[in-house]
C-alpha cells in the first residue's frame, strides 16, 4: 500500500505506527517504548518547572501511553507522528499537574526539543496503575496482570482461564478503557 513510499524519512515513528496499525506487535512495542521516553523527558521537565517532585512522573508516562493507545485512531495518517503524540502528552501532563494542584500550568515545550534526551524509566516509584487496577473486576485484573507483568500471550492467558481468545481480547480492551477512565476520575 505504499507505506514506505509516502513515509517521511525524518519521522521514524511513521513506519512503526503504520506497522502497528497493520497488527505488528513488535513494531508497536518499540513505538510505545520510544514515545514513552520522550513523554518521560517532557513530563520531567514540566514537573520540575512547576516545582513538583519527580515521584509521579512515571504515572503520567503510563497514563499518556494508555491515552495514545486508546486514541490512536485519531492519528491522521500524515507524514509525522510526533506532533500528534506530543499533543496527547501535553494534554495528559497538564491534566496530571492540575490534579496535583497546579492551577496555571506553564506551556510545555515541544516534543521535538526533548526527543534528543530520551530517558529510561525510574524503577523505584509507586505506581497509580497498581492502585487503579485494583478497582477493576477480578477477571479483568487477572487478564491485565497476566499479559503485562507475567508476560503471557493472549493465547496462554485464554488457556489458563478456560476462555476463548476473543473473550480475552474483549476483556483486555475493556480493562484498558476502564483503567483510562479510572485515571481521569482519580483525584490524587
Amino acid at each position: 500500500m505504499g507505506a514506505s513510499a509516502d513515509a517521511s524519512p525524518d519521522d521514524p515513528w511513521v513506519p512503526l505506527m503504520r506497522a502497528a496499525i497493520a497488527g505488528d506487535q513488535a513494531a508497536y512495542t518499540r513505538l510505545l517504548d520510544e514515545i514513552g521516553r520522550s513523554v518521560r523527558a517532557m513530563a520531567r521537565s514540566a514537573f520540575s518547572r512547576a516545582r513538583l517532585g519527580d515521584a509521579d512522573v512515571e504515572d503520567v508516562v503510563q497514563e499518556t501511553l494508555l491515552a495514545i493507545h486508546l486514541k490512536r485512531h485519531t492519528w491522521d495518517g500524515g507524514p509525522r507522528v510526533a506532533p500528534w503524540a506530543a499533543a496527547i502528552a501535553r494534554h495528559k501532563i497538564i491534566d496530571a499537574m492540575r490534579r496535583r494542584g497546579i492551577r496555571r500550568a506553564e506551556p510545555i515545550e515541544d516534543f521535538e526539543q526533548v526527543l534528543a534526551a530520551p530517558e529510561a524509566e525510574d524503577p523505584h516509584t509507586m505506581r497509580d496503575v497498581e492502585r487503579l487496577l485494583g478497582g477493576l473486576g477480578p477477571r479483568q485484573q487477572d487478564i491485565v496482570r497476566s499479559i503485562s507483568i507475567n508476560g503471557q500471550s493472549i493465547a496462554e492467558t485464554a488457556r489458563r482461564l478456560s476462555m476463548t481468545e476473543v473473550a480475552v481480547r474483549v476483556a483486555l480492551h475493556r480493562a484498558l478503557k476502564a483503567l483510562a477512565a479510572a485515571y481521569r476520575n482519580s483525584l490524587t
Partner: protein
Amino acid sequence: MKTSELIQALAADAPQPTPSVGRRAALAIFIGGAASLALFMAAIGMRPDIRAAALTVRFQLKFLDSFLLALPSILLCWRLARPDAKPRALLAALAAPAVVLAISVVAELALIPRDEWMKKLVGSNAMHCLTLIPLLSIPPLGALLSALRAGAPANPMLSGAMAGAASAGVAAMIYATNCTDDSPLFVASWYPLASLIVIGAGALAGRRWLQW
C-alpha cells in the same frame, strides 16, 4: 507495574477496525437531523404557504444563515476531534453567518419604513423560535456528542460548543420551514439567541462528556 509491562498489555490489545471520528460525526448529524425532521413533520409541520414562501429572498436567507452556521461547525467538530488540531481558519469561517445576517439587516432597514422596524423585529413567533430550535437540536446534539467521544479533543468544551452550533444550524433549517417571520430583523434577533442556548448546552455537555 513497570511501564514496559504496561506496554506489553497495550501491544497485545490488537487494533480494531473502527470508523473514523469524521465518518461517525457525519453519520451522527445526518441521523440526528433526520430524527428531528421526522419529529417536526409529525408534531408541527411546515407553514401552509411554504411553496410561495420558498421563492422569496427573505425566506431563503434564513436557510443560508443556518447552513453557514452548520457547515463550518460540523467540519470543526470533525477537526477538533484530533488532539493536534489547528482549526484557526475554520473558526474564522464561523463569522460568515454573522456577516450575512448583518448585511441582510442593513438591507432590510433600508427597504422597510422606520415605523415597521419594531413590529418586524418582535414578529409573532419569538417564543416558538426560542423553544423549537433548542428542542429540535437535541437529537443531532446527542448523536454528535456520542460520536465525538471516540475523539481526543484538546479542548472538550470548544468541541461541545461546536457540536451545539452544528445542531442549532440543522435545527434552525428545519424550524425555518414553519416560522412565518422572514424579516432579517426577526431572524437576527431570535435565531442567534436560540443558537446560543444550544451552543452553551453543548459546551457544558462537552466539558462533562468529552473529557478523555
